[in-house]
């Protein structure tokens, strides 16, 4: 398997930018900005799938790329914009569980942890591109989970969940180049449904409480 080095370098660059967008979803204040970062992240996932498809001559990966761009950069943002009230996108999230500098430092620790976790797996895989994609995908999964933990607005929490999903695929395209299209199609149906459900739920919460800061919903209230 001797892929051209330029593809390898471009994939590494895509991976680095992919990770940067994951950090951005953790750290941005505006809800709209984190949605745009998620779109950018999905586009980078698509790019990586195309690069890997070129390098390994795999038609499946092109299918993955096409499905990703259709669902994650077009369908899901459209669904979220339709279901969730436009007012939500203008809000800034002032109150977080942790302040931004500390969450950025934890982010750095999580990335190191992802590399530690991935290093014993790399020997087992044997695909050169997994060197890049596997640790970065795992890091994006961690960062998505951390986003869900640290943010209190509903839409950014959903975006964290979707970032986890992006991370899984980013690692997956490198490990299993011939993933059956049916599996990807199943995910492609699943994820918009999740987005739709959370979007509807957020809309209800917003209509009832006038806010989408779901972090405040922990305590019970008598009516």
């Amino acid at each position, binding site marked *: 398997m001797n892929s051209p080095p330029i593809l390898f370098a471009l994939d590494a660059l895509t991976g680095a930018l992919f990770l940067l967008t994951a950090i951005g979803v953790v750290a941005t204040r505006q809800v709209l900005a984190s949605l745009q970062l998620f779109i950018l992240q999905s586009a980078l996932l698509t790019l990586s799938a195309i690069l890997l498809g070129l390098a390994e001559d795999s038609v499946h990966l092109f299918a993955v790329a096409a499905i990703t761009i259709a669902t994650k950069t077009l369908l899901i943002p459209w669904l979220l914009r339709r279901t969730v009230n436009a007012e939500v996108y203008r809000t800034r999230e002032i109150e977080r569980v942790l302040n931004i500098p500390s969450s950025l430092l934890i982010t750095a620790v999580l990335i190191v942890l992802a*590399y530690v976790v991935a290093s014993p797996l790399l020997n087992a895989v044997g695909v050169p591109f997994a060197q890049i994609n596997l640790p970065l995908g795992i890091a994006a999964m961690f960062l998505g989970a951390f986003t869900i933990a640290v943010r209190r607005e509903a839409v950014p929490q959903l975006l964290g969940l979707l970032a986890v999903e992006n991370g899984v695929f980013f690692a997956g395209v490198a490990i299993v180049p011939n993933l059956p299209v049916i599996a990807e199609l199943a995910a492609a149906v699943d994820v918009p449904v999740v987005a739709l459900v959370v979007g509807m739920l957020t809309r209800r919460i917003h209509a009832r409480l006038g806010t989408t800061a779901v972090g405040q919903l922990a305590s019970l209230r008598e009516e």
Partner: protein
Amino acid sequence: MLERILYNLIQVAVVIAFAPLVEGVTSRLKEILQSKRGPSIFQPYRDLWKLLHKDEIVSQQSSWIFRVTPYVSFAAPVFVALLIPVLTRYPLFFAFMADMLGVGFVLALAGFFACLAAVDTANPYGPMGASRTRMVGFLAEPVFIMVFLTISFVAGSTIPYIVQTRWVTPIANFFEPSHILLLIAFLMLILAEDGRIPVDSPSGQFELAMIDRSKSLEYSGRGAALMKWASAMKFFVLLIVFLNVLVTPWGLARGMGVGEVLLAIPLVLLKIFCFVVVLVYIESSLAKLRLFRITEFIGAAFVISVVAVITRLSAI
């Protein structure tokens, strides 16, 4: 040997002569982007000329530090210009006196003196600006260390002449993720260190909001001219390190001929112009951050540089 010394002196002359021009072009471009006409690009030279012919007033309460600081500030970038590749690809006579860490130390010395001088006069705004500069400085320090760590780790050296060839031979190295991430982190550092817009507003006239500029408020006449010139040169030197060493080491003289070295001057200025356009765009599209949000900005730069190190470590 003799011509290497000569070229080294030409480098210094270029830095001294063209630094105000870069400042003039920057402010003119910014005004144009805001649909105004703006001052002439030679305005900084006229300001310097005017200030040099005015009387200097020094407070009786101030000590020798206040009087020495303009000369230290002016000498530091001049000294740095001896060390870095301004015009040539090959090391010149003084190039091995210090590496990139040395460059950082020399610039830090000038910053240290500027802070002391700001405290010295007991002008209420001076110490405030000095303490804010120190705050930005100690936040930026770890990022600097991570950036230099990565550079020395990748290139096996911190001598700028070795680093610059490492990033582009072969050209695939340019697209290395650690390189691109380093560029982003270093760009954020330049914005923070030079008091550019997300961190500080360079053209602001409101003393309470100043970070960098309030340190030299007390200077007049020749002292003010030297401080102004020094800050323009510091910016010029940072741009040269960024462009010639890290981003685009092209357009520098390869041979020993005088013509080639002189030809490199317009090419380098062209590169700086292209970068200034980008910088003006960044400055015009962002708003100044509140003081305590600066930690977030530099924290982001720190994480980016950490990621650069990690991606580099894992690639081996």
